[in-house]
Protein backbone atom coordinates (compact mmCIF):
# COMPACT_ATOMS: atom_id res chain seq x y z
CA UNK A 1 0.00 0.00 0.00
CA UNK A 2 1.30 3.38 -0.78
CA UNK A 3 -0.90 5.71 1.25
CA UNK A 4 -1.82 3.28 4.05
CA UNK A 5 -4.99 5.28 4.64
CA UNK A 6 -7.66 2.73 5.53
CA UNK A 7 -10.41 2.19 8.08
CA UNK A 8 -12.70 -0.75 8.80
CA UNK A 9 -16.21 -0.58 10.23
CA UNK A 10 -18.74 -3.24 11.20
CA UNK A 11 -21.95 -3.11 9.17
CA UNK A 12 -25.21 -5.00 8.76
CA UNK A 13 -26.82 -5.77 5.43
CA UNK A 14 -26.37 -7.69 2.23
CA UNK A 15 -24.22 -7.30 -0.81
CA UNK A 16 -24.22 -8.88 -4.24
CA UNK A 17 -20.84 -10.26 -5.21
CA UNK A 18 -19.47 -12.48 -7.96
CA UNK A 19 -21.33 -15.48 -6.50
CA UNK A 20 -24.60 -13.74 -5.69
CA UNK A 21 -25.97 -12.23 -2.51
CA UNK A 22 -24.19 -12.66 0.79
CA UNK A 23 -24.39 -11.20 4.31
CA UNK A 24 -22.17 -8.16 4.83
CA UNK A 25 -20.26 -7.85 8.08
CA UNK A 26 -17.56 -5.26 7.44
CA UNK A 27 -16.87 -2.29 5.19
CA UNK A 28 -13.29 -1.31 4.40
CA UNK A 29 -12.78 2.28 3.37
CA UNK A 30 -9.43 3.30 1.94
CA UNK A 31 -7.86 6.06 -0.10
CA UNK A 32 -5.19 4.19 -2.00
CA UNK A 33 -4.43 2.55 -5.33
CA UNK A 34 -7.54 1.22 -7.06
CA UNK A 35 -7.42 -1.99 -9.11
CA UNK A 36 -9.50 -0.86 -12.03
CA UNK A 37 -10.48 2.83 -11.90
CA UNK A 38 -8.07 4.87 -14.07
CA UNK A 39 -6.83 6.91 -11.10
CA UNK A 40 -3.56 6.91 -9.18
CA UNK A 41 -5.53 6.92 -5.96
CA UNK A 42 -9.23 6.39 -5.37
CA UNK A 43 -11.73 6.19 -2.55
CA UNK A 44 -12.14 2.44 -2.32
CA UNK A 45 -15.12 0.82 -0.64
CA UNK A 46 -14.96 -2.91 -0.03
CA UNK A 47 -18.09 -4.44 1.47
CA UNK A 48 -16.99 -7.80 2.81
CA UNK A 49 -17.69 -10.75 5.07
CA UNK A 50 -14.30 -11.83 6.37
CA UNK A 51 -15.65 -15.10 7.72
CA UNK A 52 -16.54 -16.14 4.17
CA UNK A 53 -13.07 -15.58 2.73
CA UNK A 54 -11.44 -12.89 0.64
CA UNK A 55 -13.78 -13.47 -2.30
CA UNK A 56 -16.83 -12.31 -0.33
CA UNK A 57 -16.35 -8.73 -1.49
CA UNK A 58 -18.31 -6.05 -3.28
CA UNK A 59 -15.80 -3.52 -4.56
CA UNK A 60 -16.31 0.11 -5.51
CA UNK A 61 -13.55 2.51 -6.60
CA UNK A 62 -14.51 6.15 -7.12
CA UNK A 63 -12.84 9.54 -7.35
CA UNK A 64 -12.51 11.73 -4.28
CA UNK A 65 -15.15 14.15 -5.58
CA UNK A 66 -17.53 11.30 -6.32
CA UNK A 67 -16.98 9.98 -2.82
CA UNK A 68 -17.77 13.35 -1.24
CA UNK A 69 -20.95 13.64 -3.28
CA UNK A 70 -21.90 10.07 -2.36
CA UNK A 71 -21.30 10.65 1.36
CA UNK A 72 -23.32 13.88 1.33
CA UNK A 73 -26.11 12.21 -0.57
CA UNK A 74 -26.27 9.26 1.81
CA UNK A 75 -26.59 11.63 4.75
CA UNK A 76 -29.18 13.75 2.97
CA UNK A 77 -31.29 10.72 2.07
CA UNK A 78 -31.06 9.44 5.64
CA UNK A 79 -32.07 12.83 7.00
CA UNK A 80 -35.14 12.89 4.76
CA UNK A 81 -36.02 9.35 5.81
CA UNK A 82 -35.62 10.26 9.49
CA UNK A 83 -37.79 13.33 9.03
CA UNK A 84 -40.45 11.11 7.51
CA UNK A 85 -40.25 8.71 10.43
CA UNK A 86 -39.05 5.85 8.29
CA UNK A 87 -35.73 5.06 10.07
CA UNK A 88 -36.14 2.28 12.56
CA UNK A 89 -32.82 2.22 14.49
Amino acid at each position, binding site marked *: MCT*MIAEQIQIEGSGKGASGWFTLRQANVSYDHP*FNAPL*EHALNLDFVNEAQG*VGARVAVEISAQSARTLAETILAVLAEAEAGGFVED
Partner: protein
Amino acid sequence: MVEYQTNMYEGMLAETVMMQGAGGDTINAYFARPLGPGPFPGVVLAHHAPGWDEWYREATRKFAHHGYLAISPNLYFREGHGAPEDVAAKARAVRGVPDDQAVGDLEGAMRFLRSLPISNGKIGAFGTCSGGRHVYLAACRVQGFDAVADLWGGRVVMAPPEITDKQPVAPIEYTKDLSCPLLGLFGEEDRSPSPEQVAQHEQELKRLGKSYEFHMYPNAGHGFFYYDRAAYRQEAAVDGWQRALAFFAKHLAGA
Protein backbone atom coordinates in the same frame (compact mmCIF):
# COMPACT_ATOMS: atom_id res chain seq x y z
CA MET B 1 21.92 -9.63 -19.93
CA VAL B 2 21.44 -12.42 -22.48
CA GLU B 3 21.24 -11.08 -26.02
CA TYR B 4 19.17 -13.70 -27.81
CA GLN B 5 20.01 -14.68 -31.35
CA THR B 6 17.34 -16.31 -33.49
CA ASN B 7 19.32 -19.52 -33.82
CA MET B 8 19.84 -19.96 -30.06
CA TYR B 9 18.12 -22.57 -27.95
CA GLU B 10 15.88 -20.97 -25.37
CA GLY B 11 14.07 -22.60 -22.50
CA MET B 12 12.55 -21.63 -19.18
CA LEU B 13 10.92 -23.27 -16.21
CA ALA B 14 8.33 -21.24 -14.31
CA GLU B 15 6.31 -22.61 -11.43
CA THR B 16 4.95 -22.07 -7.95
CA VAL B 17 7.28 -23.20 -5.18
CA MET B 18 7.22 -23.14 -1.40
CA MET B 19 9.95 -21.31 0.47
CA GLN B 20 10.80 -20.25 4.00
CA GLY B 21 9.88 -16.65 4.78
CA ALA B 22 9.81 -14.42 7.84
CA GLY B 23 9.72 -16.18 11.19
CA GLY B 24 10.36 -19.53 9.54
CA ASP B 25 6.89 -19.47 7.94
CA THR B 26 6.44 -21.48 4.77
CA ILE B 27 4.99 -19.28 2.03
CA ASN B 28 4.48 -19.71 -1.69
CA ALA B 29 6.44 -17.95 -4.41
CA TYR B 30 6.57 -17.79 -8.20
CA PHE B 31 9.94 -18.97 -9.46
CA ALA B 32 11.22 -18.75 -13.02
CA ARG B 33 14.64 -19.73 -14.29
CA PRO B 34 16.40 -20.34 -17.57
CA LEU B 35 17.00 -23.96 -18.42
CA GLY B 36 20.61 -24.97 -18.37
CA PRO B 37 23.41 -25.50 -15.88
CA GLY B 38 24.15 -21.83 -15.26
CA PRO B 39 25.61 -20.46 -13.20
CA PHE B 40 22.96 -17.72 -13.23
CA PRO B 41 22.60 -14.53 -11.18
CA GLY B 42 19.35 -14.11 -9.27
CA VAL B 43 16.70 -11.44 -8.71
CA VAL B 44 14.08 -11.31 -5.94
CA LEU B 45 10.94 -9.43 -6.97
CA ALA B 46 8.78 -7.70 -4.34
CA HIS B 47 5.26 -7.29 -5.71
CA HIS B 48 3.32 -4.06 -5.61
CA ALA B 49 0.38 -3.01 -3.44
CA PRO B 50 -2.17 -4.29 -5.98
CA GLY B 51 -0.93 -7.74 -5.12
CA TRP B 52 0.86 -10.87 -6.22
CA ASP B 53 -0.70 -10.64 -9.62
CA GLU B 54 -0.24 -11.49 -13.27
CA TRP B 55 2.01 -8.50 -13.94
CA TYR B 56 4.45 -9.80 -11.34
CA ARG B 57 4.46 -13.23 -12.91
CA GLU B 58 5.26 -11.62 -16.23
CA ALA B 59 8.04 -9.54 -14.68
CA THR B 60 9.45 -12.66 -13.03
CA ARG B 61 9.52 -14.48 -16.37
CA LYS B 62 11.08 -11.43 -18.02
CA PHE B 63 14.05 -11.66 -15.68
CA ALA B 64 14.35 -15.39 -16.38
CA HIS B 65 14.25 -14.64 -20.11
CA HIS B 66 17.20 -12.32 -19.56
CA GLY B 67 19.19 -15.00 -17.80
CA TYR B 68 18.25 -14.67 -14.13
CA LEU B 69 16.95 -17.01 -11.49
CA ALA B 70 13.91 -14.96 -10.53
CA ILE B 71 11.56 -15.39 -7.60
CA SER B 72 8.54 -13.40 -6.49
CA PRO B 73 7.43 -14.36 -2.97
CA ASN B 74 3.76 -13.96 -2.08
CA LEU B 75 4.08 -11.21 0.52
CA TYR B 76 0.33 -11.47 1.18
CA PHE B 77 0.41 -15.24 1.81
CA ARG B 78 -0.79 -14.80 5.38
CA GLU B 79 -3.86 -12.80 4.28
CA GLY B 80 -5.44 -15.92 2.82
CA HIS B 81 -6.05 -17.11 -0.71
CA GLY B 82 -8.33 -16.13 -3.55
CA ALA B 83 -8.18 -13.85 -6.56
CA PRO B 84 -5.06 -11.64 -6.28
CA GLU B 85 -7.20 -8.48 -6.15
CA ASP B 86 -9.35 -9.80 -3.33
CA VAL B 87 -6.28 -10.82 -1.32
CA ALA B 88 -4.67 -7.43 -1.96
CA ALA B 89 -7.88 -5.66 -0.95
CA LYS B 90 -7.74 -7.47 2.37
CA ALA B 91 -4.13 -6.38 2.85
CA ARG B 92 -5.10 -2.82 1.92
CA ALA B 93 -7.86 -2.82 4.53
CA VAL B 94 -5.36 -3.55 7.30
CA ARG B 95 -2.84 -1.00 6.01
CA GLY B 96 -0.51 -3.52 4.43
CA VAL B 97 1.88 -6.07 5.92
CA PRO B 98 4.42 -5.36 8.67
CA ASP B 99 7.80 -4.19 7.43
CA ASP B 100 9.61 -6.84 9.48
CA GLN B 101 7.56 -9.57 7.82
CA ALA B 102 8.14 -8.30 4.26
CA VAL B 103 11.87 -7.96 4.89
CA GLY B 104 11.98 -11.50 6.32
CA ASP B 105 10.13 -12.91 3.31
CA LEU B 106 12.51 -11.16 0.90
CA GLU B 107 15.51 -12.40 2.85
CA GLY B 108 14.10 -15.93 2.62
CA ALA B 109 13.69 -15.57 -1.15
CA MET B 110 17.29 -14.36 -1.44
CA ARG B 111 18.53 -17.37 0.54
CA PHE B 112 16.38 -19.69 -1.58
CA LEU B 113 18.05 -18.43 -4.78
CA ARG B 114 21.56 -18.46 -3.34
CA SER B 115 21.15 -22.05 -2.16
CA LEU B 116 20.55 -23.31 -5.69
CA PRO B 117 23.45 -25.16 -7.34
CA ILE B 118 22.91 -23.13 -10.52
CA SER B 119 23.31 -19.77 -8.71
CA ASN B 120 26.39 -17.66 -9.38
CA GLY B 121 26.08 -16.32 -5.84
CA LYS B 122 24.96 -12.81 -6.86
CA ILE B 123 21.41 -11.78 -5.95
CA GLY B 124 19.59 -8.54 -6.70
CA ALA B 125 16.20 -7.22 -5.60
CA PHE B 126 13.55 -5.44 -7.69
CA GLY B 127 10.30 -3.92 -6.51
CA THR B 128 7.67 -1.42 -7.58
CA CYS B 129 5.30 0.71 -5.50
CA SER B 130 5.19 -0.78 -1.97
CA GLY B 131 7.59 -3.43 -3.31
CA GLY B 132 10.11 -0.70 -4.11
CA ARG B 133 9.95 0.40 -0.51
CA HIS B 134 10.23 -3.19 0.70
CA VAL B 135 13.33 -4.02 -1.39
CA TYR B 136 15.01 -0.82 -0.21
CA LEU B 137 14.31 -1.80 3.39
CA ALA B 138 15.61 -5.32 2.76
CA ALA B 139 18.81 -4.05 1.12
CA CYS B 140 19.43 -1.85 4.17
CA ARG B 141 18.46 -4.29 6.91
CA VAL B 142 19.69 -7.61 5.50
CA GLN B 143 23.15 -8.56 4.31
CA GLY B 144 23.36 -10.56 1.10
CA PHE B 145 21.85 -8.47 -1.68
CA ASP B 146 24.28 -7.33 -4.38
CA ALA B 147 22.09 -4.74 -6.13
CA VAL B 148 18.64 -3.25 -5.51
CA ALA B 149 16.17 -1.49 -7.81
CA ASP B 150 13.50 0.65 -6.16
CA LEU B 151 10.86 1.69 -8.68
CA TRP B 152 8.66 4.49 -7.34
CA GLY B 153 8.55 3.11 -3.83
CA GLY B 154 6.43 5.44 -1.71
CA ARG B 155 6.89 6.20 1.97
CA VAL B 156 10.68 5.81 1.96
CA VAL B 157 10.50 9.29 3.42
CA MET B 158 7.77 9.37 6.08
CA ALA B 159 6.33 12.19 8.16
CA PRO B 160 6.03 11.39 11.91
CA PRO B 161 2.22 10.86 11.76
CA GLU B 162 2.76 8.13 9.15
CA ILE B 163 4.82 5.98 11.52
CA THR B 164 2.81 2.96 12.69
CA ASP B 165 3.40 -0.32 14.49
CA LYS B 166 3.69 -2.03 11.11
CA GLN B 167 5.96 0.64 9.67
CA PRO B 168 7.83 1.79 12.79
CA VAL B 169 10.85 3.34 11.05
CA ALA B 170 11.02 5.39 7.86
CA PRO B 171 13.25 3.49 5.39
CA ILE B 172 15.37 6.59 4.78
CA GLU B 173 16.55 6.22 8.38
CA TYR B 174 18.28 2.96 7.44
CA THR B 175 20.24 4.48 4.54
CA LYS B 176 23.51 4.31 6.43
CA ASP B 177 23.16 0.51 6.36
CA LEU B 178 22.48 0.20 2.61
CA SER B 179 24.78 -2.62 1.62
CA CYS B 180 24.69 -2.60 -2.20
CA PRO B 181 24.29 -0.31 -5.24
CA LEU B 182 20.82 1.21 -5.69
CA LEU B 183 18.87 2.04 -8.85
CA GLY B 184 15.88 4.34 -8.44
CA LEU B 185 13.30 5.01 -11.16
CA PHE B 186 10.67 7.65 -10.51
CA GLY B 187 8.03 9.77 -12.26
CA GLU B 188 7.87 13.51 -12.00
CA GLU B 189 4.08 13.46 -11.60
CA ASP B 190 4.10 10.92 -8.76
CA ARG B 191 2.80 12.01 -5.37
CA SER B 192 4.08 8.99 -3.45
CA PRO B 193 7.00 9.39 -3.69
CA SER B 194 6.90 13.04 -4.68
CA PRO B 195 9.90 14.54 -6.51
CA GLU B 196 10.67 16.40 -3.27
CA GLN B 197 10.80 13.14 -1.31
CA VAL B 198 13.01 11.55 -3.97
CA ALA B 199 15.36 14.55 -3.76
CA GLN B 200 15.49 14.17 0.02
CA HIS B 201 16.33 10.49 -0.33
CA GLU B 202 19.01 11.27 -2.91
CA GLN B 203 20.53 13.88 -0.64
CA GLU B 204 20.83 11.31 2.14
CA LEU B 205 22.44 8.75 -0.19
CA LYS B 206 24.92 11.37 -1.35
CA ARG B 207 25.70 12.50 2.19
CA LEU B 208 26.49 8.93 3.21
CA GLY B 209 28.57 8.20 0.10
CA LYS B 210 26.31 5.41 -1.17
CA SER B 211 26.45 4.01 -4.71
CA TYR B 212 23.21 4.94 -6.48
CA GLU B 213 21.63 5.96 -9.81
CA PHE B 214 18.36 7.88 -9.75
CA HIS B 215 16.31 8.66 -12.87
CA MET B 216 13.31 10.96 -12.80
CA TYR B 217 11.04 10.64 -15.84
CA PRO B 218 9.03 13.64 -17.06
CA ASN B 219 5.39 13.11 -18.05
CA ALA B 220 5.24 9.98 -15.90
CA GLY B 221 3.60 9.29 -12.58
CA HIS B 222 3.20 6.31 -10.30
CA GLY B 223 3.41 2.91 -11.99
CA PHE B 224 4.52 3.91 -15.47
CA PHE B 225 5.63 0.32 -16.31
CA TYR B 226 2.10 -1.08 -15.94
CA TYR B 227 0.81 -1.54 -19.49
CA ASP B 228 -2.59 -2.58 -18.11
CA ARG B 229 -3.17 0.69 -16.28
CA ALA B 230 -3.76 4.28 -17.27
CA ALA B 231 -0.42 5.20 -15.71
CA TYR B 232 1.51 3.40 -18.48
CA ARG B 233 4.08 5.57 -20.27
CA GLN B 234 5.61 3.66 -23.15
CA GLU B 235 8.80 5.65 -23.61
CA ALA B 236 9.63 5.79 -19.92
CA ALA B 237 8.78 2.10 -19.45
CA VAL B 238 11.04 0.97 -22.29
CA ASP B 239 13.89 3.14 -21.06
CA GLY B 240 13.31 2.05 -17.46
CA TRP B 241 13.42 -1.65 -18.29
CA GLN B 242 16.66 -1.12 -20.21
CA ARG B 243 18.18 0.71 -17.26
CA ALA B 244 17.06 -1.95 -14.79
CA LEU B 245 18.43 -4.81 -16.88
CA ALA B 246 21.72 -2.99 -17.53
CA PHE B 247 22.03 -2.22 -13.80
CA PHE B 248 21.61 -5.85 -12.79
CA ALA B 249 23.88 -7.07 -15.60
CA LYS B 250 26.60 -4.76 -14.30
CA HIS B 251 26.31 -5.70 -10.64
CA LEU B 252 25.29 -9.36 -10.74
CA ALA B 253 27.78 -10.77 -13.22
CA GLY B 254 29.55 -13.93 -12.09
CA ALA B 255 32.56 -13.58 -9.84
